[in-house]
């Protein structure tokens, strides 16, 4: 088991170590330096793609969490006859190979652009007062749409079980106590499935951050997520700036996890003490 962890972490440690390399090789150690960290913040491409990545992840997580939660509630209260086929469709992006999702969405966008252009050309010819953009491209918008699309199913899949576990009578009880059902929705259903929503959001965020393949096919040339930048960099000289940025991100996640875990175990201890 220890070997498995060595296996999992060896490349990461090497990556981290070479982020401090004075030389620009990731195989030959030339001494310690923070050079690449300084360089990193100068690198427009990397900084821009970090920004794009965070933005698309945050936005798609927000949208997918809200949309997915509502969808899950809707699906959960549907009759089985309807729910089963819908859930199957819902599972497609989860189960499908990412490349298939990416390629098919790419085709969708391109087909839409084609239609749009035909329409816009016609429109512009037909009248003269308002000029409509004829060419639209893959870009941040399509990237976001793609991310939202593959994130929603994950949110639904995490929220659904919570909804199913929820005592069916809770909404009745709230109404019984004087809530209209809108109030019941906000005061009871949402707090009740909150853990599911949160972990759904977390999963969505992780998926977004980690995604490469779908972004690759839907972001076009104008924007680039960190993963895409890394990929295109691996096709050239890879600069250790990339090691530096990943070290920073990894450190941030590690810190976050440690904080969460420490807090959780402290709370647990408190709870135990309260029980004793």
């Amino acid at each position: 088991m220890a070997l498995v962890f060595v296996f999992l972490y060896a490349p990461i440690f090497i990556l981290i170590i070479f982020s401090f390399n004075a030389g620009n090789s990731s195989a030959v150690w030339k001494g310690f330096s923070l050079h690449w960290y300084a360089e990193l913040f100068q690198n427009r491409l990397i900084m821009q793609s970090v920004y794009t990545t965070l933005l698309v992840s945050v936005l798609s997580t927000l949208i997918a969490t809200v949309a997915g939660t509502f969808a899950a509630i809707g699906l959960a209260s549907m009759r089985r006859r309807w729910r089963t086929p819908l859930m199957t469709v819902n599972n497609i992006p989860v189960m499908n190979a990412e490349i298939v999702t990416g390629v098919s969405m790419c085709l969708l966008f391109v087909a839409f652009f084609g239609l749009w252009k035909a329409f816009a050309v016609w429109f512009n010819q037909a009248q003269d007062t308002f000029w409509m953009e004829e060419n639209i491209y893959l870009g941040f918008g399509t990237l976001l749409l793609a991310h939202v699309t593959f994130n929603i199913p994950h949110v639904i899949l995490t929220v659904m079980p919570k909804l199913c576990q929820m005592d069916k009578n809770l909404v009745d009880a709230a109404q019984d106590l004087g809530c209209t059902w809108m109030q019941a929705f906000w005061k009871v259903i949402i707090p009740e499935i909150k853990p599911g929503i949160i972990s759904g959001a977390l999963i969505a965020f992780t998926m977004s951050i980690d995604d490469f393949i779908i972004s690759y096919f839907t972001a076009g040339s104008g924007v680039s997520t960190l993963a895409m930048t890394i990929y295109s960099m691996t096709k050239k000289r890879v600069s250790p700036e990339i090691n530096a940025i990943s070290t920073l991100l990894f450190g941030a996640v590690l810190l976050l996890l440690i904080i969460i875990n420490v807090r959780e175990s402290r709370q647990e201890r408190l709870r135990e003490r309260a029980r004793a």
Partner: protein
Amino acid sequence: KDTSDSENSGSSNGSGSGDRVVNVCSWGEYIDESLIDQFEEETGIKVNYQTAESNEVLYSQLSMGGVDYDVIVPSDYMISQLIEEDMLAELNYDNIPNFEKIDDRFKNLSYDPENKYTVPYTWGTLGIISNTAKVQEPITSWSAMFDPQYAGNVLLINNSRDALGIALLYLGYSVNTTDEAEIQEAYQLIADAVKNGVYQGKVMDEVFQKMEGGNAAIATYYAGDYLSMLENNEDLAYVVPEEGSNWFVDAMCVLKTSQHKEEAEAWINFMASTEANLRNMDYIWYASPNAEALETYPAYYEETYGEPLDPALYEIMAPSQEVLDRCEAYLVLPAETRTLYNDLWTQLGI
């Protein structure tokens, strides 16, 4: 109408609203990036600089649609193809006064006989790069690229035209042949080498890391990039093989769909200037088509580094006519030959 177009565009591609923008797609490791900053400073036009791995990848992106490049820098044969497919816009050379400075050798070439679409960016040769620490005997022939002796140490170039091209050269055929049998023979040559495990990988710019780091012994790549590698690994050698090779011109053109034609021409003009060419040459080691720049480069080098430029290097960068005579430029191939190239190339992955 043109002006109003370019003004209200921009917004669609996430590059800031109302700003003047130009979207450039070039090759990787193919510019001194400080030139971009300088251009932006001078003109206030924002440059979105992207790269494509090869002519063929660029073509895929353009055909697939959805990309919003203005300026692209394809090679000769690909330019012909794009013109053929009516994807390029005619340039307004009034906006590109620096075109004057381009050496006549690089004007009106076969890919753009009337020179309506292009401004050359660089030129050079294709050759074999080898690591003298790993390969003792001198390499002079393309045979090294197919020799099982070097199994696992050879890097095949990762685009169909160059890869099949060197095989055709080795077999003594023209790189522009349309004879299916000859092409099949060339394919077979590579396929056998693949089967024999000759190739460690197929690379484009990955070649830098591989060759500089001593991870492979032999590769086919471009002269300019070889010179860049040499800076990081002195053991590397370059040769234009005895069977001859390809000499190429990469030129800047503007896409028909471009919404920023003016900015595009501004960029092209800027990149065609002598100063930009000198700096770029110094950075990427590719020969410039700007006559003045090419001529004065050795002096520029000496001035900058305080030592003379090794004439051998200059010769590799801007080979003499004698070498060029051994080389052949790629011409656009007829559609069915291109399909054959594509199919064979895909099959080669097998």
